[in-house]
């Protein structure tokens, strides 16, 4: 493999990219506005949860409970009648409906342990779980405080001092913005290399390259380094100016180390792009493949839901995906301030996956080209 060929072929790719203004606009969009929108969109788990209260007691205690729900965790509670409750939940207007029974306060004070009914719309998974926990705490807290004032009763003085490290306010935007950067890096690198390869094939220019004294490996590496460079630059820009600058997300660790990880990740994803480009026989097929690959990469790599909660099989399979390791190392470096001593396993995994994908696509490259031409 000759370095000068690889360099020249890569420069050619960069020049081609510059000539497609629409694509440039899309790249800029996906690393600025798209990141910003995603980061500002993602709420705390419990943000503005819709709650309705059926107050059949109308006592000071029930009013106290109703008054304990306020933004940002909850939308101001809507007071409804028992009859309305089902219809509103069916229509998806309320996630929670709290039914305070008649004579609730009297029964509490009499020590009869009355029951409050909490209805949860279990189709809204995230809010359903953490929300019902919050509501239980709030209700028992209010009842406890009410009774304590009334009776002066003591509870066990064991306090739990909870501290959340690395992101004390559990601000989801911090995490969301970086995950979004990762998603765009993955998507863009696959599209740029894969679709560019198919375009060369459809326009016959790849054939031209193959009769010249350049090897398929040089052609591939030329594509990989140039497209990876573009995406890496966009990623660095986005991290510094959008994530750190505009969104003011504090970055705990070394940005340079993160970018080194991103470069390894790009090695793997651009190779994957080339691979898909050799598998697909036409652009429409490539489009389908892209969706089939992007959806699992985006949803199952630990960026959207925690990996711990996935079935063991999915967890194991997703270990073969570069994004899984990239998400892990991004979390470790950017938030926990981890160094290479901590994230080296992820780096190693990316190198391994990248090398495997690269050799796989190289093996297919020439064969696929001659079949298409």
């Amino acid at each position, binding site marked *: 493999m000759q370095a000068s*060929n690889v360099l020249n072929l890569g420069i050619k790719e960069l020049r081609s990219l510059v000539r497609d203004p*629409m694509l440039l606009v899309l790249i800029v969009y996906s690393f600025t506005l*798209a990141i910003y929108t995603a980061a500002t*969109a993602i*709420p705390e788990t419990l943000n503005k*949860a819709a709650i309705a209260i059926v107050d059949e007691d109308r006592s000071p205690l029930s009013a106290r409970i109703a008054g304990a729900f306020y933004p940002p965790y909850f*939308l101001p509670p809507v007071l409804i009648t028992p009859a309305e409750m089902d219809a509103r939940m*069916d229509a*998806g207007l309320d*996630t929670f409906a709290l039914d305070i029974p008649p004579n609730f306060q009297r029964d509490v004070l009499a*020590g009869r*342990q*009355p*029951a*409050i*009914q*909490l209805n949860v719309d*279990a*189709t809204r*998974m995230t*809010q359903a779980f*953490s929300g*019902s926990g919050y509501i*239980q*705490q709030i209700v*028992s807290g209010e*009842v*406890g405080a009410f009774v304590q004032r009334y009776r002066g009763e003591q509870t066990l003085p*064991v306090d*739990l*001092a909870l*501290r959340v*490290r*690395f*992101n004390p306010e559990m601000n989801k935007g*911090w995490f969301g913005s970086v995950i*979004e950067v990762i998603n765009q890096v993955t998507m863009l690198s696959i*599209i740029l290399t894969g*679709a560019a390869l198919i375009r060369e094939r459809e*326009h016959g*220019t790849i*054939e031209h390259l193959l009769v010249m*004294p350049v090897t398929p490996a040089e052609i591939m590496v030329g594509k990989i380094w140039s497209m990876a460079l573009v995406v890496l630059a966009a990623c660095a820009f986005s991290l510094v100016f959008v994530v750190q600058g505009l969104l003011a997300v504090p970055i705990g660790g070394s940005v340079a180390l993160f970018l080194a990880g991103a470069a390894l990740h790009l090695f793997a994803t651009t190779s994957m792009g080339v691979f898909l480009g050799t598998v697909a*026989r036409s*652009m*429409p097929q*490539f*489009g389908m493949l*892209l*969706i*089939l690959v*992007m*959806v699992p990469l985006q*949803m*199952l790599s630990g960026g959207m839901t925690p990996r711990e909660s*996935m079935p063991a099989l999915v967890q194991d399979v997703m270990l073969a995906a570069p994004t899984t390791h990239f998400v892990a190392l991004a*979390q470790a470096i950017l938030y*926990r301030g981890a160094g290479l001593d901590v994230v080296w396993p992820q780096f190693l995994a990316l190198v391994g996956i990248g090398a495997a994908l690269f050799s796989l696509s190289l093996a297919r490259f*020439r064969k696929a080209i*001659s079949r298409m031409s």
Partner: protein
Amino acid sequence: MSGGADRSATPPVASPVARLRDVRLMYGKVRAIDGVSLDVPGGCVVGLIGPDGVGKSSLLSLMSGARALQEGTVEVLGGSMAEARHRHAVCPRIAYMPQGLGKNLYPTLSIAENLDFFGRLFGQGGDERRRRIADLTRSTGLAPFLDRPAGKLSGGMKQKLGLCCALIHDPDLLILDEPTTGVDPLSRRQFWELIDRIRADRPGMSVVVATAYMEEAARFDWLVAMDEGRVLATGRPRELLERTATATLEAAFVALMPEEKRRGHKAVAIVPRTGDASDIAIEAKGLTMRFGDFVAVDHVSFRIPRGEIFGFLGSNGCGKTTTMKMLTGLLPPSEGEARLFGQPVDARNIATRRRVCYMSQAFSLYSELTIRQNLELHARLFQVPEDVLPGRVAAVAERFGLTDAMEALPDRLPLGQRQRLSLAVAMVHEPALLILDEPTSGVDPIARDAFWEIMIGLARRDGVTIFISTHFMNEAERCDRISLMHAGRVLVSDTPAALVATRGAATLEEAFIGYLEEAVAESRDSDAAAVPDDRRPSPPPAAAPSAAAPSGERASGRFFNPRRMLSYTLLEGLELRRDPIRATLALVGSLLLMVIMGYGINMDVEDLSFAVLDRDQTTVSRDYTLNLSGSRYFVEQAPIRDYEDLDRRMRAGELSLALEIPPGFGRDVARGRPVQIGAWIDGAMPTRAETVNGYVQGMHSQWLASRSQTPGLATIETRFRYNPDVESLKAIVPAVIPILLLLIPAMLAALSVVREKELGSIINLYVTPVTKLEFLLGKQLPYVGLAMLNFLLMVGLAVTAFGVPLTGNLLALSTGAVLYSFSATAMGLLMSSFMRSQIAAIFGTAIATLIPATQYSGMIDPVSSLGGAAALIGEVYPTTHFLTMSRGVFSKALGFGDLHAAFVALLIAAPVLIGASALLLKKQER
């Protein structure tokens, strides 16, 4: 060329079929047409002649209405082509066949299906179409091949099919843009005989043709000679010859050119070859290439000595290109051997490749790079040393006359200059062997002569061996030796003069046609389907389409005609069926994704790792720890030794939760003294941190309650409705269906329009009566159908394999799915309508669907809790509303009445998206 001479004697009809006044056209900064005023006579054949890039094609596309008028007036068939109403009214009377072999045809569709498509576009009924297709294919000799895909036809047959498609609606004006470029002489002759027969049947029809072949132009009734966007001269061929006092049109044209252009031109002089015939540059022995059952090249052998110009002739699709690819190593031969300079051809042999240059049929240089960049790239890849590189590039540019255009992009150049660039690129590393596949196809005579000057110079002076294929007989005559190829076999090889002599023919063209006809007759008995069958007698005039009633329902359906829409539906459906991999990917892929996501996405966070720094080590502290580790949510790891250990393990992400129990904890609890437990949660992933937070607090209070003697004050009974067991699967599966039902149909539809733009068949939208809405809806329907199939499969899988009960009204959900599929495919169409390249359309669609569908539509976080722009997107995004439906019907036992808000939203979304696509789509090229 029968009948040409006597018809040119009939005077052109007085009333012009088209009137052009002061027409000007710019492409960016390039002026394509520079003030043309012209009356095109009707009822005869009018030819447009001139070099490449002088505006012939632009003029024809303006006349056909395919391109929007910029300046001046164009009146065709009695009205202005600038008015949309007139264009719509007259387009059923105009037929336009664009430049490029089969450019407006659909390669995966068969001959019959292509014709059927065009018939429907002009609103013809089933009987009428069948009759016309039978007539047309019989008279063109295409009848035996009705089921063959257009992409597999030879160039000549493609052009005949194109002509049939153009004639299916009995046009009064037939516009043909270089219909015979790249077509072999036999097919070319048959093509013009066909036009003559059709004109005999329909004498009133006007034909306007652009051509690069002067010998063809000689048989037209009236000619327009053009140069640099202007008209040089008009008149009958004989008049032009008389005016310039020349014998041939080619000479006449050169004489009409401005002085400074003529200066460089001189007749090509052929220098006889002197060289050693034993020094072999190319040797082929029994080269054979099979594609499945089809034998493309059948035992071809030849030896070409160094410095020879070897011509390769044959009809389209006879195996010339395949042979060349085998010589370059692009295709490994199925049988036989090829040697270059004594070395066997090996794709891996870089040293041989450095001495060879291959120029493929299509322009295959980078259109995104300037001429200089193209030259420099190739020089560098061929290892031209950096110090001689600038000089070499300049010298080559000088030699090929490209010095003035060095910074231009190839797309901006006329074809002739582009071919010169290809050759310049090929020569920049001074190869010893050139393999050129139809390098002069579509190049005008003057440029072709200049090209040959260079080639002869290379061969004679530098001893370069040249292996060239061509359709031009005067070029074949310049070769040292030529081979005639047909159906994969070499018919004959000799010097041009010897071939003419053995055949006893007057010209090489006649000799060539003679050999071909003989070969066609021979092989017809054995394999009728493999050869073009064109020598059938023409049908009696009564059977010709002209005898039929006026085509279709010309007047009806100005705005919406279901038949025209259906023609695009059938087209798209057929293309989808011919690419089964894509449809399979769509169906199987969505089921696969559903399984992956259904099982993979789980809101139930379990098995969180935690560890304790227990400074107390009493039964009480251990009881507290057990309280956590005993639950299914937490898994205890090795105890934490000290703060440093805690810090390290949290940084590495090993622990989601770390607890510190202070010394004396057990004692303090027993005495009721205030005591504090420390807890650290890993906040790097906030969702998980929140869950951990909730769990820990809950368990803490549970523990307190269990230690406390007093009973609770009140209980809270939590009822998880719609999913009482709180199974993640039941909540996720109904949400996955809407997401996949958006992503996949949108991506399927995303390329449907932009692909036609890239491949050229979009021209059918420009020049036929089909409206934008018919076009879009027609393209959309097959994908809506596929999406519905997808939907039913996914619901089936959800109910059976996943065991998610469907409690509500399935009909309501299906109705919603139809509406939603329209929105989803319209989203793809919207991207497709305004993007110019397929890459951008794929990228755009991915951006517009992936993130909003998975994150802003309420699958995980309810839309009501979103903020910023995402909240707005979520409110209007169709997925949000179908998600409400899907969850409602699956889990909440809802029906039509309960979901009316979502129905209304979807009823609005689809028309808005389709309307936006129609607004962004252009009915004319700009």
